[in-house]
């Protein structure tokens, strides 16, 4: 469903962050992108979301080139995806209003929105605090609300940037459970980044390893974790390097 071809990008003209990236993600996959801090994982997600444009190369979503969209098509394309940023910032309103936002901007009917919000609250197990102000939430709760806020629009692809960073083990497993539910029950294609090897192993169907602007490893989770080709990946997997 997603194809990335020979992607180049950098924030400064002479400093490429991504130098020739190729991979694809099939519908229903859960792709985990790994790599050391600063390797460009978040940058890739921002490219998908059209926040930035590549220097060179293409990103195709169902054969549509993201760079060749007109203004109107752009919004339509953006509305097929949803993203949960690293350390997500919620709107300074109630939990329910945060979750409802994506349907509101799509001008859905009030009753439709209310039902969907209830469904999402049940999904994340936070029905009791629907009216609470988002500024009062714990980090784990805020992350769950951010995922519900993205999922309410039933995106074809959900991007998650380090969804369990800075969470305690209990909340990590909760969020992982939620991600699995979204992937399996809703059938949503997920592209996530993580520093957590175990997490990638537990959740992902395919994984990729980003290193020095290259995707040095890309493939089926089991294969990569048992027979990685690049020595840097093997070092990460064996725990000699922490990524």
């Amino acid at each position, binding site marked *: 469903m997603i194809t990335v071809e020979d992607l180049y990008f950098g924030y400064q003209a002479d400093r490429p962050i991504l130098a020739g990236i190729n991979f694809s993600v099939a519908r229903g996959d859960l792709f985990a992108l790994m790599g050391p801090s600063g390797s460009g994982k978040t940058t890739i997600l921002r490219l998908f979301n059209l*926040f930035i444009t590549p220097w060179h190369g293409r990103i195709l979503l169902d054969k549509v080139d993201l760079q060749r969209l007109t203004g109107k098509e752009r*919004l339509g394309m*953006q509305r097929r995806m949803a*993203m949960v*940023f690293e350390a997500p*910032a919620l*709107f300074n309103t109630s939990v329910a209003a945060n979750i409802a936002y994506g349907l509101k901007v*799509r001008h859905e009917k009030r009753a439709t929105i209310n039902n969907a919000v209830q469904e999402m609250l049940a999904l994340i197990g936070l029905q009791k605090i629907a009216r609470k102000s988002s500024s009062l939430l714990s980090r784990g709760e805020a992350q769950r609300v951010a995922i519900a806020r*993205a999922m309410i*629009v039933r995106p074809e692809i959900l991007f998650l940037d380090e969804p369990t960073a800075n969470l305690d083990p209990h909340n990590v497993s909760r969020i992982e459970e939620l991600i699995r539910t979204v992937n399996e029950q809703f059938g949503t294609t997920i592209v996530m980044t993580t520093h957590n090897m175990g997490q990638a192993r537990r959740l992902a169907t395919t994984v990729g390893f980003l290193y020095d602007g290259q995707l040095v490893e890309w493939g089926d989770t089991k294969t990569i974790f048992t027979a990685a080709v690049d020595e840097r990946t093997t070092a990460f997997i064996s725990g000699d390097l922490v990524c």
Partner: protein
Amino acid sequence: MESFHFLWVSLTQAVSLLLRLDPPLISIIDVSLRVAFTALLIGSAIAIPIAVLLTSKNFPGRQFLRMLINVGMGLPSVIAGVVVLLLLTARGPFGAFNLLWTPTAMVISQTVLITPLITGVMISSLLGVDQRVKDAAVSLGANRAQRALVILREAHYGMLTALMAGFGRAIAEVGSVIMVGGNIAWADGISHTRTLTTAMILEVRRGNFEQALALGIILLTLVLVVNWIAIWLQRRAGR
């Protein structure tokens, strides 16, 4: 403590003026509030779109415009007064409208004064909105206008501060208001272009210092009440 007796005199005068519903005073308050609120309304109608534009779109000259606004924030009121005076005077370009010495002239000069102030405070509060919140709106499918609405909403506290600052400057304004309004009251004391501040100046010139301070106390009370109402409205809207 005897020397602070004037405070007590002024306070009791302020209360008794208010309780008597002294017609000249009521008319002065009426003119003050009407002129300030009209200027605020026009000023914010101009300021909000400018602030949104200068914080959302990148175009050449944006930095220069922001600088201009910052200069305007500190515009001395006598300058605004003289300019409006020259524009409205009988021989001036807008002399035919006969606006000099009317509340309309006061509204014009106050609008000139407060619009840059409101815009400047709004710009800084809009710039203060977390980039991640803006990105979140876009990633959830917001179009340009919807994104702008989110930013306005997130900045609502600063936006209200901008309005209150504008109102405060308008109602406290003396220099330009006296120049283009003329501090006129009819023979029965009913205000035409007399405001609380210009009336204070008059009382000071007459040597009625306690009376002037009484008017000052009423002015501050008004500003306080308006602020209270604004904060109360904001709380209600926030729920």
